[in-house]
């Protein structure tokens, strides 16, 4: 079985500083993976590379069965190829309603002409209702996203990602700023999503990672330091030295 996403030998430098150093990483089509690592380990840069925001100096990034190279594609094309990204801070369109936000994200042709001709079908409406209900925003469809609480915005963004129907989801610190109950719900959501697609979660919070109960990749200085279950990597001496040892 080949991997859905394969990153191999990728290196990126910013002004001489090697943010990513010969990084190799692969994820299967239906897998939940957590990436942890201290600040500056290259977690965000890794996401930037996969989503096309940053171009690596060397290495290759391929996606899907046809091993599509992502290095030459624009952000929009990568997104259309099936990679969704959730930022650390909730980024929803605050001047638009929850319904409009979800409509924007709904999988459909993305060209200006196609969007001009787009008409909402009953199916689309059902899908929007279902997604909103799934993240607990069923009653808030007509409210502007800007007045939602922080946690609700995070969920709206997750629902938008689902609406895109990506094959790979990159999620940056989904639990940041959430209450305990919200965290539990987010965990359930992510585990559930990972049954049908690949999910990569970048997280600082060890408790949250433990709840995800999945394979963990530890990044350090732009390279993979260790990989395996959380218990396995936390016993790794190198990991303890660079990450956990700092308390």
């Amino acid at each position, binding site marked *: 079985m080949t991997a859905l996403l394969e990153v191999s030998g990728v290196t990126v430098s910013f002004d001489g500083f090697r943010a990513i150093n010969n990084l190799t990483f692969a994820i299967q089509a239906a897998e939940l993976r957590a990436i942890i690592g201290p600040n500056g380990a290259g977690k965000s840069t890794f996401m930037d590379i996969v*989503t096309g925001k940053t171009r690596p100096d060397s290495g290759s990034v391929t996606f899907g069965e046809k091993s599509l190279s992502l290095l030459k594609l*624009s*952000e*929009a*094309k990568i*997104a*259309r190829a099936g990679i*969704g*990204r959730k*930022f650390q801070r909730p*980024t929803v*369109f*605050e*001047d*638009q309603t929850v319904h*409009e936000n979800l*409509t*924007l*994200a709904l999988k459909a042709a*993305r*060209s*200006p002409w196609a*969007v*001009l001709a*787009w008409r*909402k079908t009953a199916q689309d409406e059902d899908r929007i209702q279902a997604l909103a209900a799934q993240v607990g925003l069923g009653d808030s469809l007509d409210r*502007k996203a*800007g*007045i939602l609480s922080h946690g609700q915005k995070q969920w709206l963004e997750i629902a*938008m990602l689902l609406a*895109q129907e990506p094959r790979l989801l990159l999620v940056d610190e989904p639990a940041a700023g959430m209450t305990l109950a919200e965290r539990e719900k987010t965990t359930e959501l992510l585990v559930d999503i990972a049954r049908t697609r690949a999910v990569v979660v970048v997280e600082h919070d060890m408790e949250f990672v433990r709840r995800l109960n999945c394979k963990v990749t530890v990044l350090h200085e732009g390279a993979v330091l260790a990989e395996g279950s959380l218990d396995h990597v936390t016993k790794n001496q190198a990991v303890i030295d660079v990450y956990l040892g700092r308390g």
Partner: protein
Amino acid sequence: MTLLQPRHRSALIFIACLAVFTIAVTIAAHFGLVSTSFVKTLGKTLCLCLAALAMDLIWGYAGILSLGHMAFFALGGYMIGMWLMYARTEEIVVASLLNGGLPATPEEISQGIATQIFGVVGASDLPAIWSFAYSLPLQLALVVAVPGLLALVFGWLAFRSRVTGVYLSILTQAMTLALALYLFQNDSGLRGNNGLSGLQNLPGVTASQDAVSLWFFWASAAALAVAYLTLHAIVSGKFGSVIRAIRDDEARVRFLGYSVEGYKLFVFTLTAVICALAGALYYPQAGIINPAELAPIASIYLAVWVAIGGRGRLYGAVIGAAIVSLLSSWFTGGRVPSIPLGFATINWVDWWLVLLGLTFVCVTLFAPKGIGGLFDRFAGVLTPDRKGAPLGPDDGSLMEQEAQK
């Protein structure tokens, strides 16, 4: 009835108001209550409202502060002006050659036209860009094609390089200035600083200017109505949602899979074409067009109108353009009495610009919703309480006070 949904209410009210206004002016003109020149002023104002609609789409909805759209407006005017001037001159030349007794040859006619039109800049040949001026359909096609292509090429270069915010505004100012300077040259082929004149005389039409001014008034009103309904349909649908999203946070839109540059280019070109059509209706009413019409200040006025009317709402742009441009022609018409202050006299022809500038600053500072905000107040629509935070990270994003709760 989908048309009766609340979100379509503003469009219905607008069309009703426009219809009532058009009928009222027509009746008043019929009974001689308004002068022909005033009908022309009103018709021209409607064209400016149309340009403001386009400005609102690109700035208010897509967040791109283009300060060059009046260049497209003027180009549209030039394109229709070429046909008007050519065809009108042809009539005169043919008539005068007939007096000579013998029927004129096509060469004599075209030579006569060229001398008539270009004698003023010391040339006697028709430049190549006048090749299609003999044909109304071809020249009408150029009204759309020339500004459209210019916008397409300019926009492609600018957006592809991801030029945004104030840099893009400066670039568009440079574009309109460069175009104006080019047209000022006598060998630009459009009569240099003389521009094109006599555009109010329609070739082959013997009706009086009273009638012609009304025709153009109706055409302008119809164009405004059609454009308003079309743009309303566009902005209230998913397309509008996409461009508002681009205004507030374009990086996020990219990660949703939309080609932000493609959308910007689409909107830029569409609005350029709307401006060009507005210009093609405006200049036959104005009667004359010259390169001064492409001055950078003209496009800045356009932005000021939309800001005063309230950006991000179509009726706001129309109201802003109508009120400010009518006030402007009233103040600069020299009929407003000066105010003697003893030590100085406020002469409104000079001081109008100061007043306009102050109004603009005050609107920006104290009433960012502009005149459109008054309607929100009547309708009880509040602004969200965001502790001063704008609705997105981008330069053009909606500010807290501009938003509706």
